[in-house]
Every structure is written in structure tokens, then in C-alpha cells.
């Protein structure tokens, strides 16, 4: 039941925020903050009390499970479960959710209650995605979180250059993700009908459909249906068109959520559904996926170098970082998949940090255009230092979490795909270039305008210091993360290594 509450708390908190508007400006903010901290505390409590030492190949990989019938006509169930990976990501959602509330404390000044309603509903939907095991339920949350995100960008976003309005960006985001989601729905339904044809039993259950016997002619198409939906959200390069605009136009809280959590739902979907449902097809598809990952790394990095809008720059770096995650997922190596999890967490921290910093800069100098920044190092206390730290994390400096993730990914992928690793390493050099460009243009160089600006207040210090502490903590001691995801990555690596054998074993069992 605790899993149901994890999902319900943000939704109820959101409704409360909406109504709390009438009790004054601060009420919705405090309620939203308390809600997200509550989610964080619950997930951390589960983490501390949970036992994640699964023996390899254990029958039940779930720490907690909750299921009840929902639409018996099609065998749809409300089936929630949590394991190490979901746990990490739910905790991350709680943490970044709280940060998103904090960073919009001064930024959002109108319709505060409705803003927090949308913010919390996104987070509720994301938690749902991380917990749902029934494919219908998963799809439901997957699509549902788009609506509040749309409103967040369309109503509280910034309008960029003429013709690039926030509504356009929001609409594009919505259409990209919704249309690709429908392809996933078609794939899910095909899977269900194939299973129904074979066994005469309706089910959307993950465990049941994993054992569905898909005809060979169909399987690659179904796999592609899932892949495209996840690829749009990750994003993988030909499907990335929505991302820079959505990031640039979104309010800070929206960018933090998008980069920190929403992109992670895609990687999560691949790890949880894409690979286990179609191990053989995924293995056959791996070279293509890795190539796409490589293209993403290079393309994102090169385009990041040429950006003038600071948030667009960070958005393109996300594409680059997610390229590493994609390569790791399809490498099928246990080490690389664990690295992908670490990099996902690390990227959530570092990109959230950078987005919050750019939001804070915007509050002070009212621009995101890097060509008219310059020389801020001497004008603002503390913020440039923090920027340097997060930039260092983003370029993968040792002792930051990003380094651990990227190192593990490259190291783990090398035995299976050395060429890919060699090219991907070049991406690290580009990462250094765009990170330094960001630092140089914003904080060093010629001073564009004189006058000191306000330093961070206690709220901003708390956000920055907590993020920084986590980046360094995970960078120096990633073992807790590795421990609780070991079971999952091992089982995926196993599936990948002997896709056909695992299928047979599943049927025998």
C-alpha cells in the first residue's frame, strides 16, 4: 500500500496547493515542498529498511509489490512494484521535486497554486512510471505526465526569440512524445493480442508478457514501437527536435524536472521494458542503437558549442550525455549498465544544478543570452564558484559522479564494442570544450556591464550545497548505488548474453 501512497501523495498535494492559493502566496509553496520531502523521506526509508541483496536469478526481484484488478475485461491490473532501480529513481524524483519547488520560490509570482498543481502532478506521474509493472498502467502514467508538463511550459515559460514562443515549444514537446507514445500503445496491444491468441488469457502484466511467444516476423516491429517511444523521450538524435526548445522555453523548475527526471523515464523504460521484453531483437538492434548513441554524443556536444542561449547549451549537453546511457544500455555488459544508472543519477544532479544556476542568473540579469553576459565572476559572490563545480561535473572530472558513470560505461562497453568506445571517448573531449565555453563566456572574459549583483540567499545555498554534496558523494563512494542495482543489471546482462536461452528457460520454468 505504501507504493500507492508514493503515487497518490503528489497528486493530493497538488490539489491541496491549488486550493491553498486562497490562504496566501506562501501556502502552496510550503505545501508543495512538504509533499516532495515526504515522498523523498518515504523512499529513503524504504531504501534504508529494504533488503536488496537478491541472489542472482531469484524468482522475485521485487522488494515490495502491490496489485489489484482494474479492468478485468482485458486483464488490466493496478500492479506496482519497486526494486533497486525504481527506488533510486523515486528518491531522485522526490529530491529534484523538492529542488524544483525551491528554485521557483521567487521565479513564479503569478498563479502560484496552479503552478504547483502542475508541478506535483508531473512528479506524481513520473513516480507512477517508475513503479508501474502493468503495461497499461505504465502507458497511462507515461502519457499522463505530459499534460501538466505542457501547461508548465506553455503558461509559465519564457518566450524566446520571435516565432519561438513557449506555446509552440510546449506543443511540439507534447506532440512528439504523445505520438511516439501511441506507437508504444500499438506495440503493447499487439503483444497482448499475440499473447491472447496463444494462450486465450488477457493480460498486460510484465511477467506474463515477458514469456509471450512473439512470431519472429512481428517481434522486431514491436521492439521498434517501444524503442521509438523511449528514444523520443531520451532523446536519441533523430527524435530530439523537441528538447532544446522545451528546455529553453520552460521555467527553471520545468527544466530541472525535464532534464533531471523525465529523460530518465526513457532510460528506465528501456531497462525495465524494452530489453527484457525483446532480448533477442534488442541484441540484434544493438549496433544500430549504439550508432545512434554515438551520433547523439557527438551531435549534442558539437551543437552545444555553438549555442548562445545558456539553457539551450545545457539542453544539448543532455543529448550528449544520454548518448552514453544509450550505448551502455545496449552494450549488454553488467558493468556498463550499472554505469548507466550512475550516470543517470549524476546527470540529474549536474544538469539540475546548471539549470538552477542559469535560473538564478536569469533572476539577476534577466537574460539567458551568453553573448551579453561575460565577466560575472567578479560581480556575483559564490554563484560562479558553484557553476565551476557543476561544469566540472558535467565534463566528467574525476571525483564527481559523472566521472564514475562515464568511466564504467566506457570500461564495460569496451570488450563488446571497442570502436564505439574509442569514438565515444572523443565525446569526452568535446564535453570539456563546451563546458569551458560555458564557463568562459558567462563568468570570465570582458565585463559586459558593471555593478555588483546580489549573492545567493540561504535557499539558494541549500540547493547548491546539497546538489554538490551529492555529486561528490556519489563520485567518491558510488558503492551504495551499485549494490542495489546489481541484481537488475546482472539479470539484463544475462538476458542479453543468451537471449534465446533465457527465453527457453522462461518457458521451462
Amino acid at each position, binding site marked *: 500500500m505504501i507504493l500507492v501512497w508514493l503515487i497518490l501523495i503528489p497528486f493530493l498535494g497538488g490539489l491541496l496547493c491549488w486550493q491553498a492559493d486562497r490562504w496566501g502566496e506562501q501556502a502552496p509553496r510550503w505545501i508543495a515542498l512538504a509533499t516532495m520531502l515526504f515522498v523523498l523521506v518515504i523512499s529513503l526509508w524504504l531504501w534504508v529498511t529494504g533488503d536488496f541483496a537478491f541472489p542472482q536469478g531469484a524468482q522475485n526481484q521485487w522488494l515490495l509489490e502491490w496489485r489489484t484488478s482494474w*479492468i478485468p*475485461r*482485458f486483464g488490466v491490473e493496478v500492479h506496482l512494484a519497486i526494486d533497486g532501480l525504481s527506488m533510486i529513481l523515486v528518491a531522485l524524483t522526490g529530491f529534484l521535486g523538492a529542488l524544483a519547488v525551491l528554485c521557483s520560490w521567487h521565479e513564479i509570482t503569478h498563479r502560484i497554486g496552479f503552478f504547483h498543481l502542475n508541478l506535483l502532478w508531473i512528479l506524481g506521474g513520473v513516480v507512477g512510471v517508475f513503479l508501474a509493472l502493468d503495461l497499461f498502467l505504465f502507458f*497511462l502514467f507515461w502519457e*499522463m505526465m505530459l499534460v501538466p508538463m505542457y501547461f508548465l511550459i506553455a503558461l509559465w515559460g519564457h518566450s524566446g526569440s520571435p516565432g519561438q514562443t513557449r506555446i509552440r515549444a510546449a506543443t511540439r514537446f507534447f*506532440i512528439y512524445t*504523445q*505520438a511516439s507514445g501511441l*506507437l508504444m500503445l500499438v506495440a503493447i496491444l499487439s503483444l497482448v493480442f499475440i499473447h491472447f491468441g496463444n494462450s486465450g488469457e488477457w493480460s498486460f502484466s510484465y511477467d506474463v508478457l515477458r514469456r509471450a511467444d512473439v512470431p519472429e516476423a512481428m517481434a522486431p516491429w514491436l521492439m521498434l514501437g517501444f524503442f521509438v517511444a523511449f528514444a523520443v523521450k531520451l532523446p536519441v538524435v533523430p527524435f530530439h527536435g523537441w528538447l532544446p526548445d522545451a528546455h529553453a522555453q520552460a521555467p527553471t523548475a520545468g527544466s530541472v524536472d525535464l532534464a533531471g527526471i523525465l529523460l530518465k523515464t526513457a532510460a528506465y523504460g528501456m531497462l525495465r521494458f524494452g530489453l527484457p521484453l525483446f532480448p533477442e531483437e534488442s541484441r540484434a538492434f544493438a549496433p544500430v542503437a549504439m550508432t545512434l548513441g554515438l551520433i547523439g554524443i557527438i551531435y549534442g556536444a558539437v551543437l552545444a558549442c555553438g549555442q548562445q542561449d545558456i539553457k539551450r547549451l545545457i539542453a544539448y549537453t543532455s543529448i550528449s550525455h544520454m548518448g552514453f546511457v544509450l550505448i551502455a544500455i545496449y552494450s549488454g555488459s553488467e558493468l556498463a549498465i550499472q554505469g548507466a544508472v550512475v550516470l543517470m543519477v549524476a546527470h540529474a544532479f549536474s544538469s539540475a544544478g546548471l539549470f538552477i544556476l542559469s535560473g538564478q542568473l536569469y533572476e539577476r540579469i534577466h537574460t539567458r543570452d551568453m553573448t551579453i553576459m561575460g565577466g560575472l565572476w567578479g560581480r556575483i559572490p559564490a554563484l560562479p564558484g558553484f557553476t565551476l563545480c557543476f561544469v566540472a561535473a558535467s565534463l566528467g572530472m574525476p571525483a564527481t559522479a559523472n566521472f564514475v558513470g562515464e568511466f564504467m560505461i566506457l570500461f564495460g562497453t569496451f570488450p563488446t564494442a571497442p570502436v564505439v568506445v574509442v569514438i565515444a571517448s572523443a565525446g569526452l573531449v568535446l564535453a570539456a570544450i563546451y563546458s569551458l565555453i560555458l564557463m568562459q563566456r558567462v563568468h570570465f572574459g570582458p565585463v559586459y556591464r558593471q555593478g555588483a549583483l546580489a549573492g545567493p540567499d540561504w535557499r539558494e545555498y541549500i540547493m547548491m550545497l546539497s546538489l554538490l554534496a551529492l555529486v561528490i558523494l556519489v563520485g567518491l563512494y558510488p558503492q551504495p548505488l551499485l549494490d542495489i542495482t546489481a541484481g537488475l543489471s546482472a539479470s539484463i546482462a544475462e538476458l542479453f548474453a543468451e537471449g534465446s536461452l533465457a527465453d527457453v528457460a522462461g518457458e521451462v520454468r
Partner: protein
Amino acid sequence: MLTTADLVTVLPLIIVASTAVIVMLGVAWRRNHAVTALVSAAGLVLGLLALPLTFPATSSPPLMQVDGLAVMAGTLVLVSALVTVILSHHYLTGYIGPKEEFYLLLLCATAGALALVASDHLAMLFISLELLSMPLYGMLAYSFRAERSLEAGIKYLLLSAAATAFLLFGMALIYARTGYLDLAGVAGALVQAPDAWMLAGAALIVVGLGFKLSVVPFHLWTPDVYQGGPAPATIFLATVSKLAVFVVLLRLVLAAPFFSSEWLQTLITVLALLTMLGGNLLALFQANLKRLLGYSSIAHFGYLLVAIVVGNALATETTGVYLITYLVTTLAAFGVVTLVSSPFGGEDADGLPVYRGLFWRRPYLAAVMTVSFLSLAGIPLTAGFIGKFYVIALGVADSRWWLVGGVVAGSAIGLYYYLRVMVTLYLPEPGMRRRDVTNDWGSRIGGLTLMALAVVILVLGIYPAPMIDWVQGLSGLTN
């Protein structure tokens, strides 16, 4: 010879028809808007209550067949008509001129729809279709002092007449080949493969009904008529009329096998694809809400045509579920337009700018509209998603990949304009406010009905199991 059992079977129809007579006599005796509306509503509720008595049918009255499909469609017809009556009362309060005849027309058309969904004979089909259409001319042209309304009435009249001609010609061809007019006879007389005359007859019937369903390319009348007609008449046209015609088309396909011959299936597939894409594309840049909803309803019936192409038990179930979700959604969306345009004051408030910033003035009304548009777009947790889920499932189950692709592409295109309308509701107000609902809208019955509809949309989206059970039970009993 009619027996008592026969009379019980057609009881809802009798009740609705007698209500129409009572309303007519009442108008002749003394005009009173509120009483007329109340009597009409009471008649419809009584008809609704009488529906369970008719089923399972103990008899089969001549020309009619009261099976699961008819009862299901009858329920939907009566509920939609009831909502229309409630909204009409709200709308017509400020109308200068006789108000009461609107209800008379509405009741006659409802009786036609009830007979249509149960018709088992081509003659019955034709008569009830005309009974449904004729009062609609009057309803659409009701506020005839407004030029657009008159234009809408005339346009619908002319195109309906054309459609009727197609329909009659098709029936004549089929009668000429088989010598039967009842569906069972037509189906039975056909032992070998249908020849060109039969196919031509069937195609002409499809075209005739396609006019009423505004299937592309027979849709040209739709936007003008939707825009011009008074809002309650448009609601009736978009819900009751379309629903009844669709059900009878499905009945033809289920009863007469030659409708599912390959050539006709290809024809309907092409029409369905054109309708899905055409409806959505034409709606993209509409600034008029009623026209936009008109195009949107074209697209929705394009999705639903998948059921006609497939034509099996699951298709009947899909039709039921989709029609329910479409009805509650459309009633809510048009209901908001009606309420904002009430009381009647010349042209309806259907320009998009009128709705700008509605959320900050009327949060609950805007919430109703948002929910209904999310449902039209088929977003999860709303009823519309369940409908779309069924259509895609049906296409996948029958491996109609072209149609599935069309539904997906159409939905993606459709999002653009649904989102555009939705976000308009939340944009800051430009300061000019031309039309607005009355302050007490939320405590009046029209407003309460709308909020109830919004709740129903959400409940059906979150817990659809009872609806699915009901539809599945009834469609299992369809002959």
C-alpha cells in the same frame, strides 16, 4: 398483429412520441417555457426507465428488432436528448419568439432516432431516418432571424435530400436483386457472391449514410451547419443524429454479409482514412470553436469507421464504448459553448478569443472544458482514452495496420488544435470581455449537468470496468 408484448417492447418509443403530442397540445393550450422543458425531460426520463422493461425482448414487433445494440443505442439516445433538453432550456431563456416548439422538434427527432437504432427493415430504416432528419432542419434554422442559422437549416436540408436520394437508390437496387426489404431476407436471399448491382446498392447506402455521418468527402456541409445552427441543435446533430446513423450502419454490416465483401471493405477503409486525416487537418487552423468541434467530430467518426470495416463482436463492443465516451465528451464540450452563449443573444459565442483566460474568470467551467478537450484528444485518465484504446485494440486485433496508422497519425495531428484551445483557456485575459456565463451558472441545472459530465468523463477514464461490462453484456446479445 400487434400484441401487448410488442407494445411493451416499443414502450420507450411510444412514451417519447406521446410526450411530443403532449407538448404540442400544451403549446396550443398555453405557452410556458419551463413547463414545456420539464414535460419533455420527464418524458425522456420515463422512456429511459422503460428501456429495461423491453429487454430481453419477449417479442419482435414487425420491422423492428430490439436487441442488445438497440437497447444500448436507445439509452445513449435518450441520455443525450435529455442533456440537450436541459441545455436548451438554459439557452432559449433569452430567445425572442416562440421557444416551446424547439422541444417538440427535439422530441420528434428523438423518437426517430429510437426507431432508427432498432430498425430491422429497409423501409423502417428510411422512415425513421427521415423522422430524425426533418425536425433537425427546423431545429437548425430555429433562430431564423440570424442569417447563419437559416443558412445552416437550408444547407442541411439540401444535402440531406441528396443523401436520401442515394439511400433510396441503393435500397431500390438491393430490392431489385433480392426481392426483400427486411435485413434477414436480404441476407438470406444472397447465396452466391454478390454481383455488381448488389455492391452498387450497398455502396450507395454507405454513401447516403456517410453524408449524415459527414464522412470525408461528404463532409462539406458540416462546418457551416455546426457553426450556424443554434448551439443545442448542433449538440443534437453531433450526438443523437450521428450516433443513431452510425448504429444503423453497423447493424447493416453485421446483418448483411455482402457489406463485408472485400471491395466494400476497401472502400470503407479508404473513406475511414480520409475522414480521420481530413477531419483533423481541416481543424488545425480553425479559430471558430463550433467549426473546430465539427471537424473534430468528423475525425472521431473516422476512427470509429474502423469498427465498420472489422464488423465482428469486438467491433460492436468498440462501437458501444467509443460512442459512450464520444457522447459524454461532446456533450460537455458543446455544453460549455452553449452555456457561454446563453441566454440566446444573436450569434453564438463561438470565437476562440471569447474563451481566452476563461480559467481565471470561471475556473470550474474552464476545468469542464479542459477535461472534455483532454478526452477528445484521448489523453489517459479521461473517457476518450478508453475509446481510443478500444479502436486501436480493434485495429491491432484484426491486423488492419493502415487504419491503426491512420488513427495514430490523426491523433497526433489532432493534439495540435486541442492543445491550442486548451491553452487559450489559461492565457492571461486581454482585458476585453464580450460574452460570459451568468454568475449563477454553477448552481443552475445546466451548469450542474456539465460538471456531472466532467466527473463522468474522469470516472469512466479512471474506472471503466462497469461501462465495459455493460457494453460487453449488451453487445453479446446483439443478433
